[in-house]
C-alpha cells in the first residue's frame, strides 16, 4: 500500500511484517525512529509474538540478539556510527557463530569529532567482519532490502546488515509502497535454525577452535559470502515476482550502455548522480552510473562486466581510508585489474556535507577531460584547511583543531540577531 511516510517509519513497518521475535534497541541518532516505531507496534499489539527489549548499550543489543538467535528466535537490532563500533566484538562474534541476525545501520559519521550526520564510515569500518552488507538507494529499496535480508540471512546462516543513509533516507518523508502481510509471508518462511540451543538435543556453541581447524571455519564464512553472490540475485528475482518491483541485487547500471565515463557509488547519493547523468547526457556526454547494492560480498565479476567498456571510472565515496584514500575504490580497482581504464576517487559528503548536482557535474566534467586528480575531496574548504595548517606551524599549542575551525567558520558567517 502506498504511504507518504518517514523512512524510519516505513522500515519499522516492513520489519514488523517480517515477524521478528526479538527486537532489541539502544538509541543512537539517526536510528531512533526505527526502533521506536517497532516498540510502539509491539505495545499496540500490531506486532505480536515479539519481545522488545531495551538494552543498556549497543554491545548489549547485539549480544541479546546473539542469544535470542541461538535459541531459535528471529532477531533484529539497529545502530549507527559509535554504536556499531561499541558492539564491534559482537559483530565479529555473530558472523563467526553463523547467526542470521538482521541489523539496520543508519549510516552516520564516526567521531572524533562527534558528528551526527550522514556518511558511510560506520558500516565500512566493519566491512570485513563477515556480515553481508547491502546498501539502499531509496527508502523503497531500504524497505525491500530488509525483507530480502531476513530471507538471505536465514538461507545462509549469516548475519546481514542493511545500510540506510542516516537522515537523508531515515528522516526523509516520502512515498513508499509498504507490502502486504500476505506478500511478505509468501516470500519469507518461518525461521528454521541450522543450530539451536535445545534442551532435547544439546549442542555446545562457541567453543574454542585451535590452529587445526580455525582456518577452515573462517574459510567457510568466506565461502558463504561467495554463495551469496548467486543467492542475492536469485532472491532479488523472486522478490520481483512476489512484490512486482525490482529491488536489491548485486549492482545496478544506469545508462551505461555506451558510457565513456561511469560513476560508481552506493546508497542515496545515486539519486542525485542520476539527475546529473541525465543532464550531462542531454548535453551530449556519454556518462552512466553504477550503484553497488551488495558491498559484501563484493561483486567483482559483475562490476568488471559493467565497467569494462568504459574509458574511465569515477568512484564516489562517502567514506575515507585515512592515510590512503578510497575504500570502495580499492575493491573497484581490484575488479578492473588488468583493464586499461582510468580510475578516479572522489571523497564526498563526509560528516553530512551536502553533495550537490552542481559540484558533481563539475567534477564529472573534469573527469571527462582527464583533468581530475587521482583523489579529489569534493567541496573541501581549502582555505580553512590551510589556515589550520598555518596555525599548527605557528606555535606548538595551537589548540584543538575542530575548535579552531569552528571559530574560523563562526567569524565567516554573520552573527544571528536575537
Amino acid at each position, binding site marked *: 500500500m502506498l504511504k507518504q511516510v518517514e523512512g524510519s517509519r516505513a522500515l519499522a513497518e516492513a520489519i514488523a511484517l517480517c515477524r521478528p521475535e526479538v527486537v532489541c534497541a539502544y538509541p543512537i541518532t539517526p536510528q531512533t525512529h526505527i526502533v521506536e516505531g517497532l516498540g510502539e507496534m509491539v505495545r499496540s499489539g500490531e506486532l505480536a509474538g515479539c519481545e522488545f527489549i531495551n538494552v543498556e548499550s549497543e554491545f548489549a543489543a547485539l549480544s541479546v540478539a546473539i542469544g535470542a538467535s541461538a535459541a531459535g528466535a528471529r532477531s533484529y537490532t539497529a545502530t549507527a556510527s559509535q554504536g556499531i563500533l561499541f558492539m564491534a566484538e559482537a559483530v565479529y562474534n555473530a558472523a563467526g557463530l553463523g547467526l542470521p541476525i538482521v541489523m539496520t545501520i543508519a549510516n552516520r559519521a564516526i567521531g572524533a569529532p562527534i558528528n551526527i550526520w550522514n556518511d558511510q564510515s560506520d558500516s565500512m569500518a566493519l566491512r570485513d567482519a563477515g556480515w553481508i552488507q547491502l546498501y539502499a538507494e531509496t527508502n523503497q529499496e531500504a524497505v525491500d532490502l530488509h525483507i530480502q535480508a531476513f530471507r538471505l540471512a536465514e538461507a545462509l546462516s549469516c548475519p546481514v546488515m542493511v545500510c540506510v543513509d542516516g537522515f537523508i533516507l531515515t528522516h526523509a*518523508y516520502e*512515498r513508499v509502497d509498504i507490502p502486504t502481510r500476505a506478500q511478505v509471508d509468501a516470500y519469507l518462511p518461518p525461521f528454521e535454525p541450522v543450530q539451536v540451543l535445545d534442551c532435547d538435543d544439546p549442542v555446545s556453541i562457541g567453543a574454542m577452535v585451535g590452529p587445526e581447524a580455525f582456518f577452515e571455519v573462517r574459510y567457510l564464512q568466506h565461502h558463504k559470502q561467495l554463495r551469496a553472490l548467486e543467492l542475492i540475485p536469485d532472491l532479488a528475482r523472486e522478490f520481483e515476482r512476489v512484490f512486482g518491483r525490482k529491488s536489491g541485487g548485486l549492482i545496478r547500471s544506469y545508462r551505461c550502455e555506451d558510457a565513456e565515463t561511469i560513476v560508481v557509488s552506493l546508497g*542515496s547519493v*545515486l*539519486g*542525485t548522480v542520476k539527475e546529473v547523468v541525465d543532464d550531462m547526457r542531454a548535453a551530449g556526454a556519454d556518462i552512466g552510473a553504477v550503484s553497488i547494492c551488495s558491498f559484501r560480498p563484493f561483486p567483482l565479476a559483475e562490476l568488471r562486466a559493467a565497467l569494462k567498456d568504459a574509458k574511465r571510472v569515477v568512484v564516489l565515496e562517502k567514506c575515507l581510508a585515512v592515510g590512503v584514500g578510497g575504500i570502495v575504490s580499492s575493491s573497484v580497482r581490484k575488479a578492473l585489474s588488468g583493464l586499461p581504464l582510468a580510475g578516479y576517487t572522489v571523497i564526498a559528503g563526509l560528516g553530512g556535507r551536502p553533495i550537490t*548536482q552542481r559540484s558533481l557535474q563539475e567534477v564529472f566534467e573534469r573527469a571527462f577531460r582527464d583533468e581530475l586528480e587521482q583523489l579529489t575531496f569534493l567541496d573541501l574548504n581549502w582555505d580553512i584547511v590551510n589556515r589550520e595548517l598555518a596555525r599548527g606551524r605557528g606555535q606548538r599549542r595551537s589548540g584543538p583543531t575542530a575548535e579552531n575551525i569552528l571559530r574560523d567558520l563562526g567569524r565567516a558567517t554573520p552573527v544571528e*540577531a536575537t
Partner: protein
Amino acid sequence: MFQIRIHGRGGQGVVSAAEMLAHAAFEEGRHAQAFPSFGSERMGAPVVAFCRIDSEEIRLREPVMEPDVVIVQDPTLLGSIQVFSGLSPFGFFLVNSSRSLEELGLAKFARNYLQGHVCSVAATELALAHIGRPLPNAALLGGLSGMTARPALTSVLAAIRHKFAGKVGEANAAAAQAAYESVMRSLGRETQHA
C-alpha cells in the same frame, strides 16, 4: 519539480509543515519528498525544512538550493538568516506576520518579484483564534495554497486532518482555511470554499 523551503525555529512545527505539504501532494497523486536540514533537537534554534513535489519519482537528495517557494514561519529570522537565498525570480515568498510588507521592510524586495508572489499572512493570530495555540504551520500552508494553488486547498486540508486527529485537526484546518481566505483577499482574488 516544485521546491519549497520553510524557515522557522525549533518547536514551531517547521518539519511538520514540510511533511503536511508532502502529504498534500501525495493526496493529489504526486511524488513528494520532505526533509529537515538535520540537527539535534533544540527549541528556539533556527530550523529549515524542505519539500520537493513532482509528478515523477524524485531522485535528487541535495538540500533545496533554488526554491520556488520560501515560507518564513518566524519573522524574527528575516534580518539574519539568508531566507531569500536561491529564491527563483518567479518564486513565491510567504511570511508569517500581521504586519504589511511595507511595515516588514519587504516592499522593496517584493518589487523584484511578480505581482502577488510576495505576501504576509497573520498565521499566528489565526492559529490563536482557531486552535488556541500560536502554532502557525498549518495556517501558513493554507496561505500558500492561496498564493500558488499548489497544492490545492482541499489537499492541504486533507493533509492537516491526516496529521492531526479529531478536534485538533478541525481547528488547524479552520486556521488554514482562514489563512487561505486572508491571502486571497490581500491578492484581490475570489476565494474557493473547500
